[in-house]
């Protein structure tokens, strides 16, 4: 079997202006993840590395650069799964942690459970020595602007059912 690593960087109404950043980011992520595989690392190590790369990159809606909820702050979630033994780890309502995917992996490896959420997921992350960042440190100007536009569209009566995860300025109703 030839090793393969594939990544995605989000689906939606990605504008031309954001295409170069997306390409740079997905190519970097797939190279970093594939290197782990090539160097003898596990498939879990490879996918975690690839996702961590994109969590650090504000071209993507994960980690640094995540979109804002209606209250103006970030709540992130992640999951990881190994197909050999069907082990998995999931987390949700994560705040101020750069790599939610690593929290998910820790849930898989360090607990008897599969899915932790909210305050107790954060407490678990604290106990596992994840760095807790100031709440605003993952927020980008792009994310702030997108939330402002979202609220403006709501005031105008625009249907925001399919609110965006992709942060462009030209298509107020593009699907996330």
């Amino acid at each position, binding site marked *: 079997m030839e090793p393969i690593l594939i990544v995605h960087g989000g689906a939606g109404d990605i504008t031309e202006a954001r295409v170069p950043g997306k390409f740079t980011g997905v190519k970097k992520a797939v190279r970093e993840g594939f290197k782990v595989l090539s160097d003898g690392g596990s498939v879990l190590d490879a996918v975690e590395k690839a996702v961590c790369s994109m*969590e650090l990159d504000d071209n993507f809606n*994960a980690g640094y650069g995540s*979109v804002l909820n209606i209250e103006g702050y970030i*709540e992130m*979630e992640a999951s990881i799964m190994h197909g050999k033994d069907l082990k998995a780890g999931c987390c949700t309502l994560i705040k101020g942690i750069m790599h939610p995917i690593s929290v998910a992996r820790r849930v898989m490896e360090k607990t008897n459970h599969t899915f932790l959420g909210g305050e107790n997921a954060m407490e678990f992350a604290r106990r596992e020595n994840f760095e807790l960042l100031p709440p605003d440190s993952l927020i980008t100007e792009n994310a702030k602007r997108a939330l402002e536009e979202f609220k403006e569209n709501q005031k105008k009566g625009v249907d925001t059912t399919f*609110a965006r995860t992709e942060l462009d300025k030209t298509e107020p109703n593009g699907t996330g």
Partner: protein
Amino acid sequence: TVGAVAIDREGNIAVATSTGGITGKVAGRIGDTPILGAGTYADNEIGGVSTTGHGETLMRFNAAQRILQKISCHNMSAQEATEAALKEMTARLVGTGGAITIDKKGQIGIYFTSKRMAWAYIKGNELHYGINAGE
């Protein structure tokens, strides 16, 4: 949302997905990403899938599981299954999304019903990438 799927020389498959969700979501909203079978699934005996797009739609359709079901029960290729499941999802639920898939034979599936989805993969020594339909 971002995601990754990998298979090694022994046929081991792993999947990871991470997201900030959707702009303007209600505090406490949970999407498809941490839901096994919706945003993420891996089974060495079938394949692995990571999804992205409108979370409520992907969750209600159980998108990752549907793709794997089409591979295991309908003998579809990874590409055929990914495409068929997402087309069916958008036809029935309106919301759009995308997915990346690797099946147990090492076949790749990439498809999205949204306008664009950024993706890249390495197989052998070749890197492939794209963002528009048909690339």
